[in-house]
């Protein structure tokens, strides 16, 4: 198991497998570890970073040759909670301030959502917002102030009944009013699955366009958040991608979120808008105050490159950006990063055009590998671009398990896993 640890070395054993503190001890004494240990040590460091929360150690992170470890200092009487807070697996990278939409304001993701909803309710007198706890502002503050501004008959709470919420929303939409339903967490959307798939998606089709519920938009917080465990971290976009008749959209930033949400609300099809909850506060950008639209089903090449195409959506886009810079720095590989934005219907042309140029494709998402949306992209790209591919398409995704509680750092497709997969593709 390794040499016993001295008190001033890795003191945190919270949740860590037995070998981890021992590894940390060795790592702490031997800074010159080979790159081969990098991924494990980095994970160890990050896990210790996580688990150090609650110990009386001051967390000191050493950076060397791209490696990231944690070395705990001797205990002080009172630790600083902020330093002990877990390290996120990504760094949000804001886009430059948009010039073409007028005056902008610094907003985080939930404020951008509030702004979009505010614009919607102002412009469309039939628009209503409903869901669990939306009246006081919502558990993520996305609807703060709207009830006071627009009245309690336009922003109201529902009881705890997701199936009822969506069914009810479909009913409102069928009469022509704009229904914006909130499901409190994407993990809770499953009681409403039947309503979405069997009713909302098929209404226009089955009535021969006599009726439709196109003015329904369902919003839900989505994705991992660091401590969400099984039921506050899921990314269910793949379940809905299998359902013709609806649109599924995932933004990567506040500016994108507002534009995409407004497009969803105006779109003539029922839309599901997943909001990466880890970005609600972490993502801050300059966002236009006036309404604007970002078109759906158009992927965006946020960084051009020539050797590998990286495709992701939501939070994972920021991970991919880091992977791209790591690849450039360490391997001299130029990556093209694409934010898919709309999962259904997805922009095949942009992705295929990119793969034809680069010859390599890596897709990444937090949702489990099997049946995840990466499999759909992979299948289509190999059909369309078979002769252009230099290497098999790589998918770096969550494992095929329920989203774990304590093992989240091991589960998520972090930049090291993506970098590793990219390297294998380059060397194929």
């Amino acid at each position, binding site marked *: 198991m390794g040499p016993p640890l001295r008190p001033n070395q890795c*003191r*945190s*054993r*919270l*949740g860590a497998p037995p070998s981890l503190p021992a590894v940390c001890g060795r790592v702490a004494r031997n800074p010159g570890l080979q790159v081969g240990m990098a991924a494990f040590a980095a994970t160890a460091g990050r896990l210790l970073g996580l688990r150090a*929360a*609650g*110990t*009386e150690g001051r967390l000191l992170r050493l950076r060397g040759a791209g490696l990231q470890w944690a070395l705990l200092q001797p205990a002080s009487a009172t630790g600083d*909670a902020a330093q*002990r*807070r877990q390290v996120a697996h990504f760094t949000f990278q804001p886009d430059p301030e948009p010039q073409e939409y007028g005056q902008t304001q610094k907003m985080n993701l939930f404020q951008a959502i509030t702004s979009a909803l505010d614009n919607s309710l102002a412009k469309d007198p039939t628009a209503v917002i409903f869901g*669990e*706890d939306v009246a*006081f502002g919502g558990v993520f503050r996305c609807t703060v102030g709207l009830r006071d501004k627009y009245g309690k008959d336009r922003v109201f*709470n529902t*009881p*705890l*009944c997701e*199936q*009822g919420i969506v069914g009810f929303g479909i009913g409102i939409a069928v009469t022509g009013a704009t229904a914006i339903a909130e499901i409190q967490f994407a*993990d*809770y959307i*499953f*009681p409403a699955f039947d309503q979405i798939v069997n009713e909302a998606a098929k209404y226009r089709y089955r009535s021969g366009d006599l009726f439709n519920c196109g003015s329904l938009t369902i919003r839900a917080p989505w994705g991992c958040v660091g*401590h*969400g*465990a*099984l*039921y*506050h971290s899921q990314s269910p976009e793949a379940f809905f991608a299998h359902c013709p008749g609806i649109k599924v959209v995932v933004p990567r930033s506040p500016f994108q979120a507002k534009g995409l949400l407004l497009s969803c609300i105006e779109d003539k099809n029922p839309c599901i808008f997943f909001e990466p909850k880890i970005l609600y506060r972490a993502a801050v950008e300059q966002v236009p105050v006036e309404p604007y639209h970002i078109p759906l089903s158009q992927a965006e090449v946020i960084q051009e490159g020539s050797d590998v195409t990286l495709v992701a959506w939501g939070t994972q886009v920021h991970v991919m950006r880091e992977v791209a810079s790591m690849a450039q720095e360490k391997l001299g590989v130029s990556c093209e990063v694409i934010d898919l934005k709309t999962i259904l219907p997805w922009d095949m042309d942009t992705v295929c055009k990119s793969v034809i140029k680069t010859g390599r494709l890596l897709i990444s998402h937090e949702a489990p590998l099997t049946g995840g949306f990466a499999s759909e992209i992979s299948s289509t790209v190999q059909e369309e671009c078979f002769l252009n591919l230099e290497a098999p398409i790589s998918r770096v995704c969550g494992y095929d398990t329920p989203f*774990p*509680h*304590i*093992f989240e750092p091991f589960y998520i497709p972090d930049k090291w896993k993506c970098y590793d997969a990219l390297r294998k593709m380059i060397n194929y």
Partner: protein
Amino acid sequence: MRKMLAAVSRVLSGVAQKPASRVLVASRNFANDATFEIKKCDLHRLEEGPPVTTVLTREDGLKYYRMMQTVRRMELKADQLYKQKIIRGFCHLCDGQEACCVGLEAGINPTDHLITAYRAHGFTFTRGLSVREILAELTGRRGGCAKGKGGSMHMYAKNFYGGNGIVGAQVPLGAGIALACKYNGKDEVCLTLYGDGAANQGQIFEAYNMAALWKLPCIFICENNRYGMGTSVERAAASTDYYKRGDFIPGLRVDGMDILCVREATRFAAAYCRSGKGPILMELQTYRYHGHSMSDPGVSYRTREEIQEVRSKSDPIMLLKDRMVNSNLASVEELKEIDVEVRGANQWIKFKSIS
């Protein structure tokens, strides 16, 4: 870290092993038992309800007191640990609702079954797990009852099916367990708990229908603590008479802050189910002092005065203590000694210096 956890659990769980009679109180003769009057339950589709008087023995009284105090202490400790970020994720505490978990357990056998939602630490304890296992699970350690993989919301034990995160999803499961009880023919019942918020979920009504149709030995229990997260019952439910919501299922409304009332009602309900008459519904009117979870201060949708009032007038531990002291089942000093044992003053000092 390991030392800290051992200290905590030793304090909290070690007490359960000491027999009550070991408490030394010099030259004082206590009564062996006492009869108490308890509140009459409101009934729905029932001719008679549980008895309005009950006998509490000294031994049982001390046992309930110790269990409730342990649950209370455990929840408060979990609160502390969460604020120190030793417990992460979600943590839903049930202090204030101790009479429900201890009272329900007192009314059933260990071979009966129980399933509940996420406010489950108290039930995990009363169903037989040690405080050490519960705290280990909360802090994500392998020694936890779910090997650290479940956390606060997913604790399981023998005949205790969790610990369920999705609101209302556990109720059809409970009906299924009741079906298995009936099928196995061992005279067991299943207690299926849910909250006032979950009472508005569609699958609850589906479970009611199936249980009544097939006469399953299922006791549906609505733990009504007046708030579904931050929404008061009046704002969420068209009918707040949760004991009547089973419609064709008979129901009773129970004072969930009085452990004797809960115990008698549970005995009554269990006897009803065991006699093959089908399901029955119990509404326990109770209260939680903490917010919905640790990220909810619990005061934005209710006043501090309200919380204070419940604490001073209806606290379950206080009610039991008063009853026992006033009827000479125990002395104040004796109960205080139990408090001290559970709290373990000296050990907590050591604990603080480690963390």
